[in-house]
């Protein structure tokens, strides 16, 4: 078995064992998932994206995808990339969006020792210590922590030499791909179990067709995410991320909508687990650039190369 599959299988097993609905509910109430964080650290998952981890960066993103499958209530994307860019995993560090002298949308700022602010345009950023008193707490639509904090005196410039913003966006792409797969599985399972009119609702053609549409979107999202991960460190990375974030984001809306329809009122309850997944893809499609943002970037590039060359662009990479 190759390294990636081994990592995926290990992550799958550990996340299944340590992330259940109770853990998700607690995190969404604002309790930092301390035990889960310890398990992640014990297994070295937080160091996977570091230059000396011995693991291919692409494989690290494959693990992020597995975390997405489990709606893991830890900011794996931000943790992995913060440790990579700090070249240290000594303390909990996370990432947000640099806006002048503040950093926005920082997960679990109150639990972190260090926060990185990444500039969306310039691909550079700062590393700052965190002052707990000055944090403004906020949540995204999935009740994931997205705090605001100031850049403190003594903050360091990061001096990044890789496309940080695109890598963060890729993190959301990978997370969504995993999460969407799970939403489909939950929906298939529910459709086979729920009975109405004396038979499982999966026997109704309307349900079958809705789920076939969902499967198509999930498969497309999955293939798009794989392609963007494969493009890491390549010359077309930014454009591949643009295509993937746009495509996966579009799938997210369709899949979440249909999954709720198939689940009926049960899926609308807080008690059912579906919403942990659907709310996350709703949130993630908007973070680090929504579909329109990335479509426009990709579209501007293609307009720039011109009508006679667009096919060449599309056909250049398998």
């Amino acid at each position, binding site marked *: 078995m190759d390294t990636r599959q081994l990592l995926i299988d290990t992550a799958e097993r550990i996340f299944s064992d340590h992330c259940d609905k109770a853990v998700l509910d607690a995190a969404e109430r604002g309790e930092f998932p301390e035990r889960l964080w310890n398990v992640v650290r014990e297994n070295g998952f937080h160091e996977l994206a570091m230059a000396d981890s011995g693991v291919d960066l692409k494989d690290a993103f494959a693990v992020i995808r597995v975390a997405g499958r489990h709606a893991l209530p830890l900011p794996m994307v931000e943790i992995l990339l913060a440790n990579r860019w700090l070249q240290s995993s000594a303390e909990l560090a996370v990432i947000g969006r640099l806006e002048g002298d503040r950093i926005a949308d920082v997960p679990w700022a109150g639990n972190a020792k260090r926060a990185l602010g990444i500039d969306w345009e310039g691909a550079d950023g700062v590393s700052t210590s965190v002052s707990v008193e000055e944090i403004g707490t906020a949540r995204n639509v999935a009740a994931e922590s997205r705090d605001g904090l100031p850049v403190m005196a003594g903050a360091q410039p990061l001096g990044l030499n890789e496309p940080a913003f695109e890598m963060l966006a890729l993190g959301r792409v990978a997370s969504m791909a995993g999460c969407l*797969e799970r939403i*489909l*599985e*939950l929906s*298939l*399972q529910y*459709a*086979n179990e729920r009975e109405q009119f004396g038979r499982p609702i*999966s*026997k109704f*053609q309307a*349900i*079958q*067709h809705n*789920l*076939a*549409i969902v*499967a*198509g979107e*999930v*498969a*497309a*999202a*999955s*293939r*798009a995410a*794989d*392609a963007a991960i*494969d493009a890491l460190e390549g010359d077309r990375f930014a454009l*591949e991320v*643009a*295509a*993937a974030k*746009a*495509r996966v984001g*579009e799938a997210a809306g369709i899949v979440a909508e249909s999954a709720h329809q198939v689940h009926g009122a049960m899926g609308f309850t807080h008690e059912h687990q579906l919403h942990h997944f659907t709310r996350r893809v709703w949130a993630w499609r908007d973070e680090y650039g929504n*579909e*329109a943002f*990335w*479509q*426009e*970037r*990709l*579209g*501007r590039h*293609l*307009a*720039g190369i*011109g*009508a*006679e060359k*667009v*096919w060449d*662009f*599309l*056909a250049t*990479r*398998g």
Partner: protein
Amino acid sequence: MVVRFVLQFDRISLPEDSPALRAEVREFLAAESEHLARPNSDFGTGHDPAFSRKLGARGWIGMTWPKQYGGAERSFFERYVVTEELLAAGAPVSAHWIADRQSGPLLLRFGTDAQREAYVPPIARGESYFSIGMSEPNTGSDLASVRTTAKRTGDGWLINGTKLWTSEAHRNHYMITLVRTDAPSDNRHAGLSQIIVDLKNDGARIRPIRNIAGSEDFNEVVFEDVLVPEDRIVGEPGNGWQQVTSELAYERAGPERFLSAFRVFVELVRAAGEAPEPQLAAAIGRIAAHLMALRRMSISVAGMLEDGQSPEVEAALVKGLGNDFEKLLPEVARLAVPTGPGAEHRRFRQTFADTLLLSPAFTIRGGTREILRGVIARGLGLR
């Protein structure tokens, strides 16, 4: 019970040597611009025998077939490169398309030596064209319900019945016709056979049917006591159902299942100019993002086929998704291109109109959207 999503689209890329072949095709197309006066990416549009013969001469028809029968013994991937380049350029491929994609492989797999020798090399040369005779007035999605009969007589097969929607029957040379050779029984799939009909000489009556685009591409083909020789049957009598279903994956996941509207995209980019407004740029990006994902899924299926797997459900999924996208593309483009004074964009509007009028067929031919969703649902364990 925990349900796992079973559909698999491997991370397969086209082989390293494909750029050379790709460049060769592009060079060829640049030199043959007389055949590309009105580019259309729909595989069913553009009957141009002279162009097909030129492709045949280059070895680009029957590419994967044995050399013995005029093929080039190249890989499915190489065939993929050639077909997608032709479609993207909007080349007129409809004359040889079905023979290359379907009829040749069918004859190679199930035909007799004599049939292979007689029919396959002219296909590879781009000289002999085939139609598919499956649908009938009362047989559409429910293909097993065909009523056209063929009775064995001392002199051959006596055919009676009507085929409908037969693309290019009025222009092509042969039709591989799905017929009942045995009376219907409890097993609906038994008693079906495939017979080669010579459309020019056997005496079937062919009547072209005008479509909404105003062209005559598909036909009604009527058989009244049409007698064809014994040796026209393909494979064992009664094996027809296995034969028509065996090639579905090949038929369904090719680039023609998501590129039919591609020229509209090219004209959208042209109309946008170098520095479009955000919304127009976003429309271009949205379409491109879909295309990139679909193309990779389609190549994944090609890879699984090359690998000897039979990804029937994956192929149905790619076709379904691709066909819906072919309809989405013109709609997205249409609303993105500026209208009003000074915004003529004639090339865009012409290409858009040509494609729009063909678009209803995208989700019908080769298995309707609804039938494909049924196949996917079965693959998901729902039926």
